């Protein structure tokens, strides 16, 4: 039973890691129906920014809490500006183009940003400082759930609730829903669609940056390639949960994380991905729009 609980929490952490990235995919898809492949790279840039800021601040001897907050803010602002720019440069000019064009443009941005960081920073793995402290009260259960696992779990929950609230009950949220339903109609009723889409990219990128900070701190290393692999898994999770749905992205991520964890624990880690993707195929056969996705008939 202990082993089951250990694997369960391991899977939960892994799922929450996916969820922090998957939320950005699902938000963008929900609004403009685009799979933003550069999202994983935005996450990676967030992690790099946090790394640089945290390193500089620790040289000046800032306290740990201040480092997390300042590095998190800096990463969020920096990544948001990248997300905003990517949308403006690579997606906005193609908004009226066939769906394949922005998709290819997104893949291009992903490769561009990866290589940009490779050239501007380094191809090496860098040691990411453990920004999340080891809480003393977690010590008795540290072999099951560590401090950084706890922080990631809580952050994911808070972010999901916050986003749901934002979309359901705020003005910008209402504008987002309107844009998602019908862009032309939204313009006619006086919504600045461009601004709504920019806001979506900014929020999604800020979340990815915070995810980058927490995940890099949990894993302890970063390099220019981390966004690609994490992005693919997060994208899978978003599809699993029903792309376009916020709770769906979190649910899909948790299902994916738990499946991988139990597959490794009870079968073999050789088959981790086999189980994960078999599950994806099964769910899509019986529920093509994903676990919580709305069935759509007109798109694609």
């Amino acid at each position, binding site marked *: 039973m202990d*082993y089951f609980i*250990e*694997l369960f*929490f*391991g*899977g939960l*952490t*892994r799922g929450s*890691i*996916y969820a922090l990235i998957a939320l950005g995919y699902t938000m963008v898809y929900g609004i403009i129906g685009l799979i933003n492949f550069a999202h994983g790279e935005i996450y990676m840039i967030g992690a790099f920014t946090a790394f640089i800021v945290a390193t500089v601040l620790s040289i000046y001897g800032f306290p740990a809490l201040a480092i997390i907050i300042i590095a998190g803010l800096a990463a969020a602002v920096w990544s948001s500006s990248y997300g905003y720019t990517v949308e403006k440069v690579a997606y906005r000019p193609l908004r009226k183009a066939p769906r394949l064009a922005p998709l290819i443009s997104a893949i291009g941005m992903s490769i561009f940003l990866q290589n940009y960081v490779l050239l501007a920073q380094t191809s*090496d*793995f*860098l*040691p990411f400082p453990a920004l999340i402290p080891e809480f003393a009260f977690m010590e008795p259960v*540290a*072999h099951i759930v*560590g401090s*950084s696992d706890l922080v990631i779990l809580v952050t994911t929950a808070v972010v999901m609730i916050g986003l749901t609230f934002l979309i359901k009950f705020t003005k910008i949220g209402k504008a987002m829903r309107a844009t998602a339903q019908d862009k032309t109609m939204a313009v006619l009723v006086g919504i600045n669609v461009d601004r709504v889409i920019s806001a979506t990219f900014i929020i999604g990128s800020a979340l990815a940056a915070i995810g980058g900070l927490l*995940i890099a701190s*949990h*894993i*302890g*290393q970063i*390099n220019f*390639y*981390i966004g690609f*692999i*994490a992005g693919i*898994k997060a994208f899978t999770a978003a599809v699993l949960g029903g792309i376009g749905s916020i709770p769906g992205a979190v649910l899909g991520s948790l299902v994916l994380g738990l499946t*991988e*964890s*139990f597959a*490794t*624990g009870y079968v*073999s*880690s*050789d088959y*981790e*991905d086999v189980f994960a993707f078999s599950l994806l195929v099964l769910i899509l056969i019986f529920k093509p729009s994903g676990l919580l996705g709305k069935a759509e008939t007109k798109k694609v």
Partner: protein
Amino acid sequence: MKSALKKKLFVTAVALSFAMAVPAAGIAGDTIKLGVAGAQSGDLASYGLPTVKAAELVVAEYNAKGGINGKKVELLIEDDVCKPEVATNTATKLVTDGVDVVLGHICSGATKAALPIYKEAGVVVMSPSATNPGLTQSGDYPNFFRTIASDDAQAKTEVDFAINVIGAKKIAVIHDKGDYGKGLAEFAKTFIEKSGKAEVVLFEGVTPGAVDYTAIVQKIKRKGADAVIFGGYHPEASKIISMMKKKRMTTTFISDDGVKDDTFIKVAGKNAEGVYASGPQDNSTNPVSVAAIAAHKKAYNSDPGAFYENAYSAALALLNAIEKAGSTDMAAVVKALQTEKVETPVGNINFDAKGDAVGVGFAMYKVENGKYVEVK
């Protein structure tokens, strides 16, 4: 295909007729003929050329001292471009020219193709670089020796260390599913099973680049492993060891040359402390090695290339064996190689019955205070 075969037959026929034409006196001439075979042109020339230079330097040194037992040493240099089909011709040519011993070949495939020809002719061959385990372990080639550790030597070093030094009874073997990591892990598994002193409690591959290795770490703990042998590179190794430390595990972590890299220590930080990794032996304090490298710098005004030290050692070992044996007869040379120790850049070596150099290969290192230190 057909014409290639024809060509080969023709070359062999020509070679044979030459072999018959050359009188036996040529072989027992007044020089000792050291053949050097390997890639000297083509893509892999950079692997073979340092061996030629090593042979030239060693032979020059011997001849300056007056040769071996009064006979000068003569070099016969042949190119096999690391291709098995060319290597057979190279070998035939060398044998025809009356070579006494051969330093080479460079690539395992070419070496394997050439060996039967040398065996037939009773010529001792020593490679500085052919690492295929079967070349020595199959026992097919009593005339073959090498001054480099075979591909599975690293796994053997790790397993011996885990069982005999750490005293591990239950070992988890983990790899990264890559050619290097998985190959090594499979050798390690075989060695553990053969030893009979420990059992493999877990043999699994992890996906490189995955965001988190909690599940596999929990599994290692559940299987009650005393030691983990990991085959792969440092990014995964540092993630796994960090996760193990997070889960408060004290299991010994043993890994390979892919982890014996300062980046591993930099990335894993304090979690790296106490990790063991195998790596090539450090010869930098060996005076023979220092002298060999200095000789290269003096003669060619550049740093030596790949396998230079192994080739230098092989040339020394071959000539020393001929000197000690007092003849170039295969049985006598083989016996001398096995019994007479010789000081070389890779250590004070002789050879075991299968042809591998004793004491050449990998050493274990441990991370202590942020540095890899050799475990004596």
